[in-house]
């Protein structure tokens, strides 16, 4: 609420009029010079233009957007009806884009903080920013003989292809340290890599052809809203939809059957089902004989090691339900499984994905329309990566880039030696809220000579930076986007001018390069100028043109296009494994230290001290640290909760909205309770996100425990985010 004015206007008015006349002042000089204004050029007619944009967020849907711009102001965003996936709508997050572009909270100018974390900021020019950054880079190179003390942490804040120019910028100064890996989905990627050779999913629009669909550990009603249309359409065409999840999600509420499973035991359910399918001869022996390797070994493992009683006991799901599920899944064709990312964020997550893949394989559902084991795809990502592909300057020291694990970033930065890490460049990321072990991450930041963050808003990561650089939104810069789920390709046009002094990350790279070369000729190879639109064009490869059936990228100005082929994964039966078959037995898995078969690996257990598993799924109004800070989202909900099953709550005498402390060895958070039967009794749920101006960050309690897989395909294992064991206590 606004306060009353400092001075009561009435009382003041009386005296003021009387006193003015008595003041004497000399001079009649009007030295007016324009600074921020200027005489208007001939009055323009009002214009309304439409632009094509793409949502670059780390979201399944990568929506094609139509933006309405009136007289240079972004007025409205809608889903592009030209995409049969986006179908003319956006999600609540997407619809809020006009708010993020024009949020009063945007970072407007480059600024320098005097004392990291002090909140004492000084506005600087871009030139000052580049100078300070370049001087530090060159100094570190002199002191340590290479640019290895400079570390990049960039990931999923913006998946526009041009944004890989940030990696290119670091390459162009020499060998540097890179936070490598991906936090949230690598265990599943490796699992499918061992089984199929890589990740490929069916076109999600093909879901309509499924007759049976198991959504396993995914919540598309929140996290892939456009897919829900196809799920419902399938349902209407007679498909039975089953949701398996420890949480009765919004997706589950739309299902024909919801099965609440004990977190992290998904593999046991899959193997129990497989045993039933084997015992009842419901498997597709013909498909297996033709396409797979290791079926015999897998079946003998099932016979010798798996029983339905055991599966029921492990998963908390009654045996007759497992039998029903197995029977229905194996006998309804085609049957589809959507494997979510939530279920693989465990120390046995990759192994569990392999067990589920095996279900799809033994029932012959692979390579079929309406079937499959959908995880994700990177088939449409075959760009040139022109902005990323830079050469290293000669004699810049060091042998090669140094990879550190992005999933244990704080500790790895602190432990890096010869040379130590002294400078961080953070882009498209918020490690201070989104990484596990926040306290360690903070310590790593504290040890730096210089931390540079490029961002849109003040976040806890920016708070711990020395220099912040304002970046553009997707509407202020050109780009190109594809999805890791659907098969559309969208151009992102620059719809409006960059607000304030914000710049595209590639422009920043160009200008920093100019500064580096000014200070030390030859110290940076990144081009010092270039037209961003043209640079977008340079990202396109022949392969992309062929895949999408276009001759020139400019054709995309007419609308997004969909891949012309490859829409049903593995339809050709050519698997990319070493054997060329679907590998139930994977020597490659063994090479990486796993069991060659998709056997059950024991899930992590709670302890007496920390009896509850805290899972931290995605929140409906945010994608990690993005969106929840906007006014519309805050208006819907601005309070994190801990969701607790009534039985658990009763044990701790916790009632709805009571303040609860959740803690373990590494930290604690205090937040209000929400008592709900939607969570299973073995877990508490705290949705991960960043709330502006709230002292909430669940990652203070999350240890950097690696998931079982991820090393092969992404360079580092994922994080077992959902193997976080905690105690709770009423405050």
């Amino acid at each position, binding site marked *: 609420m606004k306060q009353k004015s*400092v001075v009561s206007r009435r009382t003041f008015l009386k005296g*003021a009029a009387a006193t003015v006349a008595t003041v004497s002042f000399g001079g009649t000089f009007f*030295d*007016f010079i324009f600074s*921020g204004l200027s*005489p208007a050029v001939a009055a323009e007619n009002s214009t309304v233009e439409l632009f094509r944009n793409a949502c670059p967020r780390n979201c399944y849907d990568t929506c094609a957007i139509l933006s309405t711009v009136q*007289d240079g102001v972004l007025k409205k965003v809608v889903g592009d009806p030209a995409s049969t996936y986006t179908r003319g709508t956006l999600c609540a997050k997407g619809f809020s884009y006009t708010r993020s572009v024009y949020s009063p909270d945007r970072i407007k100018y480059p600024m320098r903080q*005097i004392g990291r974390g002090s909140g004492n900021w000084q506005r600087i020019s871009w030139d000052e920013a580049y100078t300070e950054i370049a001087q530090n880079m060159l100094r570190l190179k002199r002191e340590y003989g290479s640019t290895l003390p400079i570390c990049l942490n960039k990931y999923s804040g913006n998946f526009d292809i041009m944004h890989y120019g940030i990696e290119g910028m670091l390459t162009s100064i020499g060998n540097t340290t890179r936070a490598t890996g991906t936090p949230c989905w690598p265990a599943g990627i490796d699992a499918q890599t061992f089984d199929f050779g890589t990740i490929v999913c069916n076109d999600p629009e093909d879901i309509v052809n499924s007759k049976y669909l198991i959504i396993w550990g995914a919540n598309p009603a929140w996290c892939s809203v456009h897919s829900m249309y196809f799920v419902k359409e399938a349902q209407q065409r007679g498909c039975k939809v089953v949701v398996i999840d420890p949480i009765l999600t919004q997706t589950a509420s739309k299902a024909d059957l919801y099965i609440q499973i004990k977190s992290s035991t998904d593999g046991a359910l899959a193997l129990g089902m497989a045993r039933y399918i084997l015992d009842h001869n419901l498997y597709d022996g013909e498909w297996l004989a033709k396409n797979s390797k290791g079926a015999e070994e897998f079946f003998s493992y099932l016979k010798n090691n798996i029983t339905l009683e055991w599966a029921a006991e492990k998963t908390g799901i009654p045996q007759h339900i497992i039998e029903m599920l197995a029977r229905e899944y194996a006998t309804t064709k085609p049957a589809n499984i959507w494997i979510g990312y939530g279920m693989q964020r465990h120390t046995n997550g990759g192994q569990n994905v392999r067990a589920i893949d095996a279900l799809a394989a033994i029932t012959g559902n692979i390579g079929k329309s309406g079937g499959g084991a959908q995880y994700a795809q990177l088939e449409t990502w075959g760009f040139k990566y022109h902005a990323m592909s830079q050469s290293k300057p000669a004699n810049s020291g060091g042998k090669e880039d140094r990879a550190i694990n992005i999933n244990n970033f704080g500790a790895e930065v602190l432990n890096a030696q010869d040379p130590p890490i002294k400078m961080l460049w953070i882009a498209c990321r918020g490690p201070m809220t989104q990484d596990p072990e926040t306290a360690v991450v903070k310590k790593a930041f504290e040890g730096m000579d210089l931390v540079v963050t490029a961002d849109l808003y003040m976040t806890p990561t920016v708070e711990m930076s020395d220099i912040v650089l304002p970046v553009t939104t997707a509407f202020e810069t050109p780009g190109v986007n594809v999805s890791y789920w659907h098969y559309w390709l969208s151009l992102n046009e620059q719809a409006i001018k*960059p607000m304030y002094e914000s710049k595209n990350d590639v422009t920043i790279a160009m200008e920093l390069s100019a500064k580096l070369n000014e200070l030390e000729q030859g110290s940076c190879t990144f081009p010092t100028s270039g037209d961003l639109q043209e640079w977008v064009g340079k990202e396109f490869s022949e392969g992309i043109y062929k895949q999408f059936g276009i001759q020139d990228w400019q054709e995309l100005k007419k609308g997004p296009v969909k891949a012309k082929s490859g829409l049903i994964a593995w339809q050709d039966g050519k698997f990319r494994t070493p054997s060329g078959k679907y590998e139930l037995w994977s020597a490659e898995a063994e090479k990486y230290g796993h069991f060659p078969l998709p056997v059950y690996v024991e899930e992590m257990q709670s302890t007496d001290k920390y009896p509850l598993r805290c899972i931290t799924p995605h929140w409906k109004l945010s994608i990690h640290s993005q969106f929840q800070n906007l006014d519309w989202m805050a208006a819907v909900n601005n309070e994190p909760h801990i969701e607790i099953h009534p039985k658990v709550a009763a044990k701790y005498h916790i009632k709805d909205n009571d303040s609860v402390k959740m803690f373990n060895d590494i930290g604690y958070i205090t937040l209000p309770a929400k008592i709900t039967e939607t969570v299973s009794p073995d877990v508490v749920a705290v949705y991960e996100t960043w709330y502006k*101006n709230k002292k909430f960050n669940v990652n203070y309690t999350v240890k950097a425990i690696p998931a079982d897989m991820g090393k092969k395909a992404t360079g580092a294992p994922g994080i077992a985010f959902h193997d976080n064991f905690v105690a709770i206590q009423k405050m």
Partner: protein
Amino acid sequence: MPNHTFDRITDLAKRYSLYSLFKQYYQGEWELARKAAATIQQYIPVNDNLSFQQDHQLDKAALFDYNRLFVGPGKLLASPYESAYRNAQGLVMQEETLFVRQFYLQAGIEVSNKNAFPDDHLGLEFEFICYLLAREGERLQADDSSTANHYAALYQEFCQQHILSWVYQHCDDILTHGRTSLCRDTAIALVRFLQTEEANFLSKEEFV
């Protein structure tokens, strides 16, 4: 030149110089704060408990304070944008901003880097006022009182429709969140000055 015209020009010049100081202050020259506050004191005797503190620290603390209030990178504690106060959701570049744009256009003026910087930043609104007052003065010196009156009327309209509708609240925010006497006193000085202007509008109306 008749005496009353001379008086009008003199008065105009004083007000112009004050607006000019505030314009520069809001356009980033925070060091001008002290000068603005001091000049105001010459213009308006201050005789209540909101007297200016004399210990203006033209040091980093004031600069940091200024940035926290008006510049960033965090949420602005006293946003210098009209729409922050008048738009229901406090967004920039909304209808409220475009009304200001329209007003500028009436006088043949626009923001140089249009659509990159919101038109309703206080530094720009003050610059617009400076422009109107300078034109008024220039026309008066040229004995063209009818055009001068046109600019005076535009100024009054702009001030009443825009400045006075939000800047008092904005100054309240500075007094609530400002930590240094420099920023706080400048806000008080600004309130004083605008109140004088408002009083003048009223007395003119009474006179008519």
